[in-house]
């Protein structure tokens, strides 16, 4: 579509050009679908939005107890705070991945009956997970007060880390969403990844004293670098992050995002036919 009144040409294999314009035209859908998901989540619940806070808190309690049992060193930081900082970005990533993964299937009636750039659907799921993240992150402030921990100067980098996390969540979301439409098995694969991933993502500092190459290999898991960086920004030098690991995680994140986008766009044209 060159202009509103220009001629739109629909031809097999040539629908790329108007896609990005359409994304802009439908920009409000990002917000609206996220708003809808948010609303329906908490309608008819008693506790309402407080669930966004209760869930991570309960997870922190569980993780802290396991951590204490495992006797991991938290670098002098109070364990609850240490684990909370690790859990926050992880929760964002894992909920974004599972919600986007199912988002296309759950909105199958929309996809088979109306036109809009399908990218909006998993992206809006990531936005909903992001609001959950913000609500839980707000709890960091009273927690740090309570433990009398002052934020270090590198906290100004926190938005960058969050942005990186967002990019990873979005990229993983695109991949899983597109794959789930074609192979419904992924609905079962994702919860498994989420449960297993807690142990290999650096929330538990099991590799603190491991050899450098082992640590480097572990940081090919992009969440490792992000979680370490998040903790370093909030808690300071007691939770140091290795620059090489951060670089590796970031590059993997970028690869996941771009490849996810590409795969999604490639398979998008068949969504309405196979969903």
């Amino acid at each position, binding site marked *: 579509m060159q202009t509103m009144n220009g001629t739109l040409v629909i031809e097999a294999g040539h629908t790329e050009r108007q896609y990005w314009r359409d994304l802009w035209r439908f920009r409000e859908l990002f917000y*609206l679908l996220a708003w*809808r998901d948010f609303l329906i989540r908490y309608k008819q619940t008693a506790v309402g939005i407080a669930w966004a806070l209760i869930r991570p808190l309960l997870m922190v309690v569980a993780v802290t107890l396991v951590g204490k049992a495992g006797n991991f060193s938290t670098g002098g930081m109070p364990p609850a705070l240490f684990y909370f900082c690790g859990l926050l970005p992880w929760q964002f990533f894992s909920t974004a991945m599972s919600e986007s993964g199912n988002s296309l299937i759950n909105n199958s009636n929309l996809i088979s009956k*109306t036109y809009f750039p399908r990218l909006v659907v998993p992206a809006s799921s990531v936005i909903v997970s992001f609001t959950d993240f913000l609500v839980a992150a707000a709890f960091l402030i009273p927690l740090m007060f309570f433990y009398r921990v002052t934020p270090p100067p590198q906290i100004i980098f926190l938005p960058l880390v969050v942005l990186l996390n967002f990019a990873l969540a979005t990229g993983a979301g695109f991949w899983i969403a597109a794959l789930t439409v074609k192979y*419904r098995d992924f609905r079962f694969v994702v919860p498994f990844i989420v449960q297993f991933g807690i142990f290999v993502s650096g929330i538990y500092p099991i590799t603190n004293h491991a050899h450098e190459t082992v640590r480097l290999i572990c940081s090919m898991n992009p969440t490792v670098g992000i979680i370490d960086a998040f903790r370093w920004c909030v808690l300071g030098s007691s939770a140091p992050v290795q620059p090489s690991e951060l670089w590796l995680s970031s590059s993997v994140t970028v690869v996941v995002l771009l490849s996810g986008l590409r795969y999604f766009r490639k398979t998008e044209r068949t969504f309405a036919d196979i969903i």
Partner: protein
Amino acid sequence: MPQSDTVIAVKNLSKCYSIGHLRTANGNKICHPPGLRHAIDHALRHPIAWWKDRKVQQEHFWALSGASFEVKAGEVMAVIGRNGAGKSTLLKILSRISEPTKGRIEITGRVASLLEVGTGFHQELTGRENIFLNGAILGMTRAEIRKKFDAIVAFSEVENFLDTPVKRYSSGMYVRLAFAVAAHLEPEILIVDEVLAVGDSAFQKKCLGKMQEVSRNHGRTVLFVSHNMSAVLQLTTRAVVLDKGRVIFNGPTEKAVEEYADALGKDSTVFFPVEDTPRKYPGSGVARFLSFRFDRSMPIFSPDEDFQFIARVRANETLPRIRFSMTVFTPEGIPIGTCFGTEQPGMRRGEEREFEISLPRPRLAHGRYCCGVSAGKGDHRVGMVDFDTVLDTLAFEVRREEGDGGTLAEWPRGWGSVILPDLKCRPAALASASETFTNNVEMLPA
């Protein structure tokens, strides 16, 4: 070279779906892999076959083959055809929901598609919230929706219920609200797919009226798909008839409707497999019609015969009883009459059974008809639940035999489709009042 006022130009459009089973190059049949597990499983089990047959041939179903037509600005055009002719596929491609396999479409102007009433409505949200959601999904910006909010609410007549969740609405309110949002879109081209089939007659009149207004007063182009021939005749000036994915007619609506009725009857089939055909009114699904058939070689009945067919039903749940009902339609989609059967003994879950269904001497005038059949429980007196409904099936013809005399010899269309029972007449018994009448009559000139 399309003329300057052509807004939609469809050129040689084809759409192919790959269906069901795959057939590999050397003829082996493997199941369509719905899951990664099956794909991996197949690769591991038959590695040589998998390697050799990587370019597997899939069975193709051409929903559209080489369809071409043009729509001019401001025209209201209908697309008609039997079930399975490719109408919905055509609309999906025009709405950019599906991609074409071959061919090309050129569209000038903003397109809005109404393929379903209430797309995107969520049951838990209120009417107000759903207006915004549905409007955004259909392509309106929030500012636009806010501007037209009052008009939408007025059209839908649900002012008092705007803040209750939509799941509490009656189906009529739901449909009115959904159509109200869609009716206030302002596209240059509007594509509508059978949305008029839902709702009561007052609602249908309102929708038709709005669509007429949209085309006459605002000069918008409307592409309209329907099975309701009277609506098509009322609303449109030109029509395209699709049959098995091809355009078989493109011209004035009256002729198109005749072509469509002909196409309906051309297939003189006595067997109607309906297990996989899509249902317009799904019903609860606890039972499903698998097929219908006539126990004869041609679907032709004489006017004095009983109308009989055999329905094959599968029960998806255990049913204590089942009751059939049927509506007979003219080819234009006008219902002639409905009848209910007596309750039949129940079926176990998973059981398939055939039922002989017979309408004694319906006395239909000669012509073509089709039926809608429903299985369920209850009736119009006590309330109904439908298990499964199949429309636009059991196409048959009533033909009078050669040498049939009497009233049946010439039955004009204006007399309707049903030959009602013969009138019983007799002279009324004489009484004093009528004597006077008789006397007066005698005085009239002979």
